[in-house]
């Protein structure tokens, strides 16, 4: 847990990891991007998703495997992503840090 503190997750990294968690077995780049766009209402660049997935995998937060090479994909396999326990711990850490910073501030924000 301490290890992750010095390498905390960025906002977009968190979104990608959360999308992977939400989608479970259906998590690959296309669905993850759609999920983020649908929930946040922001438009998300494909390139940003891909390099973030790469980075998270290199850091060990995600793991990937190839499967389902359908005809509509030109016979190319999908790369499915799964959150590893380290990634879940990192998410939990970011969330608890955010929650601590938010604690007691809700009324202040509502006033503005």
């Amino acid at each position, binding site marked *: 847990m301490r290890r992750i503190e010095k390498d905390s997750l960025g906002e977009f990294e968190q979104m990608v990891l959360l999308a992977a968690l939400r989608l479970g077995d259906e998590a*690959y*780049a*296309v669905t993850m991007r759609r999920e983020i766009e649908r929930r946040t209402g922001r438009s998300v*660049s*494909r*390139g*940003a998703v*891909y*390099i973030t997935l*790469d980075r998270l995998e290199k850091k060990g937060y995600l793991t990937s495997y*190839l499967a389902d*090479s*359908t005809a*509509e*994909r*030109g016979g*190319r*396999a*999908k*790369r499915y992503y799964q959150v590893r326990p380290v990634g879940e711990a990192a998410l939990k850490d970011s969330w608890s840090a955010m929650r601590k910073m938010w604690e007691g501030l809700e009324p202040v924000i509502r006033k503005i």
Partner: protein
Amino acid sequence: MKKTPSPPNIALFLLRLTLPDDVKESVIGDLEEEMAALSGWNSLRARLWFLRHAIVISGYYFVDRRLRRTPRRYITSLGYEYSLWFLLGIAGLALLIACANLANLMLAQASVREREIAVRLALGASRGRLIRQLLAESLMLAVIGTVVGAFVAQGLSRFLVSFIRQQGRSLFLDLSPDWRLLAFLAGLAVFTCILFGLTPAFRATRTTPGAVLKAGGRGLTASRERFGLRRMLVVSQVSLSLILLVGALLFARSLQKIMSIDPGFKQDGGLIVICLKALACVMFACLIVAAGSCGQPPAGAVEPALDATLKDFKNPEELRALFNKDKDAPRLILLLSPT
């Protein structure tokens, strides 16, 4: 379902060129899948869609890789690295020419001393002994040449560097000799000596003494084939020199051209801004034009300007203040936007 359009080849090429191996095929597959899902689009439009996204994705990977792998201070020295390799190649060619020249001279020397060698052979000297003698001579030559060359190179390289140095801009190069260089030189000397010293030695001792002593008075016309190797060396020497000469002339011309070009902006100090949003890019461009039109050079310290670009675009006034802060700030500003 109607037939799906095939992705444009140039997009596939671009993606394969820029993406890391392990994700290449899956990324292409993702794009194909999304393209197939674009219902009601005609083939051309779908293919253009594919191309556009391929360009954006490879742009992301390109920038990401650059930022991650190249520490900023090395980016500027990249250009130097390539020209140094080029210089090494030229030095190698010059060395080859020198070796060919030396070998040629040694062959000539051996043919002049043919008579002496023949006499010694006739008096009973063994072949190995003669080869040893010639080898020792060439080794001596190589060692003296190497030592003198090392000293001359020290002085000359200092002179060359002081020649490159311009007023107000000093250039520091570490010119102290190190053991790797000396070891390389010594190895090269020994190698050259063995390679080009042995051949004349073998040639000189191969002929029978009787024939040489008899042929001695008849001039050199009879031994035409013996000069095959020498002629080959001369030919290769001349051709290598020609390559170097032409290359040097071309370089001198392009150097002259480069020096006389007026690019229209101050060349030292450039700023590359990568804006993540096209709108931000446009705003930044407007700002530069505005700063330039009011008589102030579009200037800004690199780091603050970058920060402001990427983080906060709501306050152009502040950005403008940053711009005019530093007189020595970049004059060339490149704007890139991946979207």
